[in-house]
């Protein structure tokens, strides 16, 4: 595949200035990545933003996008375009990662099991289901009574809360197989939800009290490669302007600060310029690409934040060699592997793939023996993800220099399967459109439209729809995360939760 790729244009002249470039302020979220599905969402509020995103997607799909760079580009145009690269890096990291991919696998399974659970759970008329259910399941009876009383006092009426079992930490951590009852299924689902949360939020607290989690490493990887691709495509001046005027002192800048103490040696600046970003990208990739932890339950051993910290501690003791290694980006991961006495990075990815393949075979065997539509649709999507993981593994490790620079998500990604992409158009004022007569579901669909650019993804349309819908429902139910992007979408999600669980949902006072 790498033979087909076009060479990336890196603007070599540090004095180059993008003709007509206009520096504008951008202080809003342009896009998001959903850890439970791998889907990308882009918030497009007007035609110009739509075109910027569409042209990037065209580039990824076909390798050509002649109108991508025009005259008088603004920092906003560049950020909207590279937000596509940023989100795609999240997706690619999730594919290569052990923890992110494992979280995705467990989330898919959680959705399947939860559909079964809520089919069997006795319905209680007019009783509310607490959101997030996972926290409620772990709340003891005494606290539940207090919180319910607070809710009733606020609303001035009696409010029925749906009866769900309480599980202690011990019950949730034990590996004993749950009983084949509804309570047993509830326990299995709760354990699944706990493990998803653990996989994504495990981390460490630094000496200043700042918490650094797996999610921060994924953000570090995406922001460093996004800044690199801005610099490579639009020049050092544009990259520097965007960093100082848009990212400086934001959360994204803060995640980059984590490598600050590696950049200085004996009071002198050791590493600077784009080398800082390449170092951040390479360290994140090394931390993300873990092998399956052994023994299995010790998920924290594969946690990217902890692995990142371990690598940083070693690098702090080896700064002169680090500086030398940065001279050859192709060699960086190998240098980290040797320093950490670890299996080569690519082999670690292969080891995780073998673990996922093993699980897939077992589930395929189960799915073949019984009629279970949710399982079969989720399995279809999962099998596609496995294919994409394998595809990316070969491509990325075939050209590590460009992968570490974020270049795959700039100009070299074409030919790889793209995940489902959602256009969120809630910024458009639909009420002003004439002849718009639609029900809640139709209006919600108009606000958020899913694109399946790759044929392979288009071929599993039903599976992607099922996963999208149920992930949103159970993300709300267990974790109280709402994917709604507008009033109409909120209403649609609430209807969906009611349809699947049989209850209205309420967040109780903390």
């Amino acid at each position, binding site marked *: 595949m790498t033979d087909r790729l076009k060479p990336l244009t890196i603007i070599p002249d540090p004095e180059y200035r993008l003709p007509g470039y206009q520096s504008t302020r951008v*202080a*809003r*979220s342009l896009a*998001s*990545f*959903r*850890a439970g599905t791998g889907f990308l969402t882009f*918030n497009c*509020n007007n035609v110009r933003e739509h075109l910027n995103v569409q042209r990037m997607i065209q580039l990824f799909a076909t390798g050509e996008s002649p109108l991508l760079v025009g005259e008088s580009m603004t920092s906003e145009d560049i950020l909207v375009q590279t937000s596509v690269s940023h*989100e795609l890096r*999240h997706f690619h990291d999730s594919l290569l990662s052990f923890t992110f991919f494992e979280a995705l696998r467990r989330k898919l399974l959680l959705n399947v099991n939860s559909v079964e659970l809520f089919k069997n759970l006795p319905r209680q008329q007019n009783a*509310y289901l607490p*959101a*997030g259910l996972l926290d409620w399941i772990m709340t003891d009876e005494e606290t539940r009574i207090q919180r319910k009383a*607070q*809710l009733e006092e*606020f*609303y001035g009426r009696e409010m029925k809360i749906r009866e769900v079992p309480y599980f202690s930490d011990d019950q949730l951590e034990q590996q004993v197989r749950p009983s084949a009852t509804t309570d047993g299924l509830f326990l299995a689902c709760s354990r699944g939800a706990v493990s998803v*949360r653990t996989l*994504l939020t495990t981390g460490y607290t630094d000496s200043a009290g700042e*918490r650094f*989690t797996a*999610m*921060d490493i*994924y953000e570090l990887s*995406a922001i460093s490669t996004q800044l690199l691709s801005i610099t490579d495509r639009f020049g050092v001046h544009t990259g520097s302007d965007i960093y100082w005027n848009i990212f400086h002192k*934001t*959360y994204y800048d803060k995640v980059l600060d984590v490598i600050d103490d590696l950049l200085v040696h004996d009071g002198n600046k050791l590493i600077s310029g784009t080398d800082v970003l390449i170092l951040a990208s390479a360290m994140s990739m090394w931390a993300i690409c873990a092998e399956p932890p052994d023994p299995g339950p010790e998920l924290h051993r594969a946690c990217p934040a902890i692995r990142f910290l371990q690598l940083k501690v070693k690098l702090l003791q080896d700064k002169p060699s680090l500086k030398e290694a940065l001279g050859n980006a192709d060699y960086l991961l190998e240098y980290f592997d040797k320093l950490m006495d670890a299996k080569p990075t690519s082999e670690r990815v292969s080891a995780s793939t073998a673990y996922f393949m093993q699980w897939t075979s077992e589930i395929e065997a189960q799915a073949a023996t019984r009629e279970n539509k949710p399982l079969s649709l989720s399995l279809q999507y999962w099998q596609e993800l496995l294919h994409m993981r394998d595809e990316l593994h070969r491509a990325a490790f075939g050209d590590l220099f460009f992968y570490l620079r974020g270049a795959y998500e700039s100009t070299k990604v074409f030919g790889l399967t793209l995940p489902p992409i959602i256009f969120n158009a*809630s*910024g458009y*004022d639909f009420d002003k*459109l*004439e*002849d*718009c*007569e*639609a029900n*809640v579901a139709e*209006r919600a669909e108009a606000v958020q439209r899913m694109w399946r650019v790759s044929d392979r993804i288009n071929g599993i349309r039903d599976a992607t729809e099922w996963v999208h819908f149920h992930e949103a429902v159970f*993300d*709300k139910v267990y974790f109280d*995360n*709402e994917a*709604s*992007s*507008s*009033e109409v*979408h*909120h*209403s649609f999600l*609430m209807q969906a*939760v*009611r349809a699947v669980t049989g209850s*209205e*949902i*309420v*967040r*109780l*006072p*903390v």
Partner: protein
Amino acid sequence: MELIVVTDNRDVADVLATVDPSAKTKPIKSLGTLHADLSGASAIAFTVKSITAVATLAKSAWKTIEPFLVSKPKGKLVVKGPFGEIALELANVTEATLGTAFTQVFQAAEHAAKSVKPAKKTK
């Protein structure tokens, strides 16, 4: 009860923190989000003592942020209450939409759903 307003517009976040004495800035990570790219936003939590106080809080919030909305800034404003959350585009926020969002997140979903009427045909 807690009402949380999340926004990715830093100017609006700064002024929201002055709306009411109960306003507290919350670390975005404390909201338990498991998704990437939301960490750039700010969250401001308000304590609401009764259901009738919700409308008053919405009015105060509107008065405070209105001057910042004249220029139609880009970004989102997400209102989170016991019955879910509603996202508004800052450029489209009016006193009415803000008031409705504050009220709806304190109402059961079935009420919120009923209020979403199809747009009327104008031709």
